């Protein structure tokens, strides 16, 4: 059998997938994942999805106009992020990659802060403790270990909280991710591993990372793994809630594989037409995470046109506001290079700062 012919990971008979809302907007029941949402809560999730998509689209536009160096779009992954993000309580801690703009939204991180990183103003710049939302991590997989260590701290504090850590399908090949699975398992750490399987790691398809469905990896490490429809915000919420609750009550880690799709390019510098067929994208568009909630709200008369119009209007305002504040973001000062490298005084940094300051002053005369 050739490698091409094997295409194991995706061609296998579809494994169980937790779904509570079909792409057509039909509510379905699942024996293990019950979810009782008020109409108000459903409208609120819808609003989250729409606003986050708008933040993302605005950022892509800003990049195209040269205002951001690069942007990693979440298009298509809104439900996975909002569903899991809204499952968190205030004391839970989230560890993101560089694409978790929807989770950041749920943690009340000002979206303009996310732009700072991609504009090159700083490397992060928000206080992780303020929002219990850690800094974006560019190195693939590193943050999974930080999440487990943090969870071990929660255990030592006897606190009732959990961590959730986000990573992609490509990341599951990294040593750190596998090490984090081992650590979490042997220490029974209160951590939820949330893998957004968006099918691609830049140009590399899932089958370059794995021959088995990713959620099944967990059993080899000794904890439960579950696959959820990543485009179904209800299912993502229900599954993540349950996993977090298990973690908080001493039942250890869970791996959640949110089965989703990256509808945009990997980042604004990527060209998916080189490696991806258009039909794949078309098929996934039919599973759009926002459209199905909208259909559900409509069909069940839980929202009227005025509601949808008001959310769109709010999105327009949010986009305009984000644009305005992005452009107003000042460039850092040259001497800022030396700030925050160390907490305590450092002779070499002081020396280089003074020398560079003197050099710069030479131009002012």
């Amino acid at each position, binding site marked *: 059998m050739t490698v091409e012919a094997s295409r194991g990971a995706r061609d296998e008979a579809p494994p169980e997938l937790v779904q509570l809302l079909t792409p057509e907007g039909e509510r379905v029941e699942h024996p293990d994942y019950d979810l009782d949402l008020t109409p108000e809560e459903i409208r609120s999730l819808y609003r989250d999805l729409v606003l986050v998509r708008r933040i993302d689209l605005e950022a892509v536009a800003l990049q195209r106009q040269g205002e951001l160096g690069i942007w990693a779009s979440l298009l298509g992954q809104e439900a996975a992020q909002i569903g899991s993000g809204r499952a968190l309580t205030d004391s839970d801690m989230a560890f993101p990659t560089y694409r978790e703009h929807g989770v950041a939204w749920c943690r009340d991180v000002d979206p303009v802060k996310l732009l700072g990183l991609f504009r090159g103003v700083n490397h992060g710049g*928000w206080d992780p403790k303020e929002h219990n939302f850690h*800094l974006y991590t560019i*190195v693939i997989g*590193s943050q999974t270990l930080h999440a487990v*260590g943090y969870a071990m701290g929660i255990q030592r*504090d006897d606190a009732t909280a959990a961590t959730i850590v986000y990573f992609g399908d490509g990341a599951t090949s990294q040593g750190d991710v596998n*090490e*984090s699975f081992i650590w979490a398992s042997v220490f029974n750490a209160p951590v939820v591993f949330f893998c957004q399987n968006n099918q691609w790691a830049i140009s590399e398809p899932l089958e370059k990372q794995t021959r088995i469905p990713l959620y099944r990896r967990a059993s080899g490490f000794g904890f439960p793994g579950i696959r959820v429809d990543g485009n179904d915000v209800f299912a993502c919420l229900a599954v993540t809630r349950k996993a977090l609750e298990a973690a908080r009550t001493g039942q250890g880690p869970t791996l959640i594989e949110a089965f989703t799709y990256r509808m945009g390019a990997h980042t604004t510098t990527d060209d998916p037409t080189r490696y991806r067929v258009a039909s794949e994208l078309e098929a996934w568009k039919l599973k759009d995470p926002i459209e199905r909630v909208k259909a559900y709200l409509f069909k069940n008369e839980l929202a009227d046109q005025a509601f949808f119009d008001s959310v769109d209007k709010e999105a327009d305002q949010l986009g305009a506001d984000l644009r305005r504040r992005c452009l107003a973001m000042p460039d850092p000062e040259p001497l800022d290079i030396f*700030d925050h490298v160390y*907490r305590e005084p450092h002779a070499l940094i002081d020396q280089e700062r003074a020398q560079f300051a003197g050099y710069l002053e030479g131009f002012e005369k």
Partner: protein
Amino acid sequence: MTILSLSKALNEGMRKAMEDDPKVLIMGEDVGKLGGVFRVTDGLQKDFGEDRVIDTPLAESGIIGTAIGLALRGYRPVCEIQFDGFVFPAADQIITQLAKMPMRSLGAIKLPVVVRIPCGGGIGAVEHHSESPEAHFTHTAGLRVVACSNPADAYTMIQQAIRSDDPVVFFEPKRRYWEKADIDTSSTDWWTPLHAAKVVRPGADATLLAYGPMVKTCLEAAAAAEDDGRSLEVVDLRSLNPLDEAVVMESVRRTGRVVVVHEAPVYNGFGAELAARVTEQCFYHLEAPVLRVGGFSTPYPPSKLEEHYLPDLDRVLDAVDRAFGF
């Protein structure tokens, strides 16, 4: 006063730090029941429990990565890397995360993590057990890098490293683990700041700059040189990043001749940095170029050859002779 070996002094220092601050944790491979392969953490798990002295899975990136998470939660982890050559699987976490995360947060978070690395050769070990990887870490902004050379410093420096709010890479000269000295553990007034260099033997004719395992070798060389009528000053750098330039340059200006001694390969080693800085700042005081003695540009050799690879007293004195020949 108590007579302690360097390894026992580190052990006592960590014990003191753990008593003083309940947030201090020890973690690494075999650090618990066994007390570490060099027994540096001997008895700590018995006294502080498995939650504070954590036997980890066998994965270096995991050790540092989870230590970062614990530090984010307010703990002060002290990680043991079993041997120098095994720090590389953790290099990614140390270089891309530990060193840079505080800056990424614009100073909002601190990562008080200590990475202890038994380093250097001279114990007849197999491959990957005798290396000196300090230059990899001195080249990484955001880390502090220190090396102890004797029991008294080991006792104080480990406590200072644990108290630091910055990440510290802490090198322990493994072939000196068994060296003993009288230490007054009750006194604190003789504590030198963590980043201060020390003149450990005053001299007038040339300066030997060393750290970690080579300090003792240099002291022996200086004692031997005295018989030839040469007075050599020995400076123990103690801290490689930041470097205590004041002490170094003051010594060089007085003696006019410098020999740098370390075990790591000379090419692109820490000695290159010292030579460049000394030349820049003491050019008119120098009677000879800064000379370096160290390992070759080869992998660390099998142990039957290590005596040829490692700088010894004669190689140091040979360099001193060359310095006087200019």
